[in-house]
């Protein structure tokens, strides 16, 4: 027991050591950002120093505008993500029940999976206009495929003996799905979800670049047009923070739900 405890301590201090390392890298990067541009004589419209970026970010006039536009972008992301994930899960579970249909559809899934889907964003703006719907449709498309592909893969790789175990014990098709297939596929479903989250942010921003009235993508383009590089960086910081927050949220839910993983 004492060996176990000391091993746990060793692992614990290793983990906090890692954290110190990660934070040191961040500190070095931030310091370099503040002092290197001036030292190298880089003009501020190319790389503004950190303090200028922070001033732009927390500018009392601009900040409320940033927030409301971030709200618009997140509305697109969350709506699209919700719809895309729901559709991906539903179709995956359906296809896993119908191996023949799956065989027919599979080549199309692979084909669509390998096209850069953001390229169709201009088309969606033509079809659905400059408002919310065109952005949501792009996000749905980008969130849907990773969830579909990963969920199908998870459902298809359930252990054959475990399926036999359920069949020997007279499990109904619904019990087989709800009590074995879906829980067993959860690790892969969450992997798909993590990809979907990252894709959704990309989808929303690209769709906003193509044509929108509001959103962080619009603000970035406006700041670029005025050559306000510090504002562009400030908006990128907001965008990154939102992306990281969503990713951390999904990973945390994964740790709680898939609590048998990674031990």
């Amino acid at each position, binding site marked *: 027991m004492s060996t176990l405890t000391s091993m746990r301590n060793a692992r614990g201090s290793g983990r906090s050591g890692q954290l110190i390392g990660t934070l040191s890298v961040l500190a070095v990067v931030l310091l370099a950002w503040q002092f290197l541009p001036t030292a190298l004589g880089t003009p501020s419209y190319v790389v503004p120093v950190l303090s200028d970026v922070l001033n732009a970010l927390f500018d009392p006039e601009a900040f409320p505008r940033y927030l409301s536009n971030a709200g618009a972008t997140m509305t697109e992301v969350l709506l699209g993500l919700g719809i895309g994930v729901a559709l991906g899960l539903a179709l995956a579970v359906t296809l896993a029940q119908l191996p023949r249909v799956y065989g027919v559809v599979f080549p199309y899934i692979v084909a669509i999976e390998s096209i850069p889907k953001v390229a169709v964003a201009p088309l969606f703006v033509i079809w659905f206009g400059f408002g919310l719907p065109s952005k949501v449709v792009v996000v749905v498309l980008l969130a849907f495929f990773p969830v579909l592909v990963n969920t199908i893969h998870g459902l298809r790789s359930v252990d054959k003996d475990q399926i036999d175990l359920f069949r*020997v014990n007279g*499990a109904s098709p619904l019990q087989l799905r709800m009590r074995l297939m879906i829980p067993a596929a959860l690790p892969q479903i969450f992997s798909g979800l993590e990809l979907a989250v990252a894709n959704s942010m990309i989808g929303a921003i690209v769709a906003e670049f193509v044509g929108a009235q509001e959103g962080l993508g619009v603000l970035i383009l406006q700041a670029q047009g005025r050559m306000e590089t510090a504002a562009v960086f400030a908006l990128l910081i907001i965008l990154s923070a939102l992306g990281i927050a969503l990713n951390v949220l999904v990973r945390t839910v994964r740790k709680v739900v898939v609590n048998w993983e990674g031990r």
Partner: protein
Amino acid sequence: MTISPIVELEQLGKVYPTRTGDVTALTDVDLRIDDGEFVAIVGPSGCGKTTLLKILAGLEQHTSGVGTLGGRELGSGAADVGMVFQKATLLPWQDVRSNVLLPVSLQRRPSKADRAAADELLEMVGLTDFASKRPHELSGGMQQRAAICRALVHEPSMLLMDEPFGALDAMTRDLLNVEVNRIWRETHKTVVLITHSIPEAVFLAQRVIVMSPRPGRIVDQVEVPFGPERTLELLGTPEFGALCSTIRRHFEKEAAA
């Protein structure tokens, strides 16, 4: 008093259609297993022993002949059996007790009596302290013990074991074999064990069914003359060794042919 057969197979066969023609997995299987008997089936891979077990379990349909299990025609719905696989196949998201209760919970909400039965089985295999643990916290041997409890919890008329200890190390395997012998004596269940280890078959069974591949069929049935209680000392006796050699000769003939 006559012992009633729990399994009766007559001319049972199984043919798989494949693209390159039909493959005969099993042919002309005549087998009678008495209630409470411990039967082991040995044979090299491809001899159809797993197919035979799956037919008994109702997981596969035979294509010729007739068979009954517990008086019911084979192939008429889920069989009244408990099954142990080579892997423990415990569900990682449930604790050990819930895993053991799976056969019950698929039929109805487990009652207090069901939970008591599960705890009793876990006590029998020495896993009482692990009832609330998750499977990944158990060793391979402990997981397989839990899987045996799961196969017994719904009081099936028969226990089917498909190379249950094939993935374990030799020492754990010996200990578990002693335990299976004890469980069999305590529960009086009919047991059918599939194995490719001849000593394991002789150590555990009252009768060893020898199977041969291409096509899968029964080539011999060997009565094991030792009493119901088996201990590890048996493994070192000349009688034990002689019986193993008798059975092994079937496969040497096969290899030479």
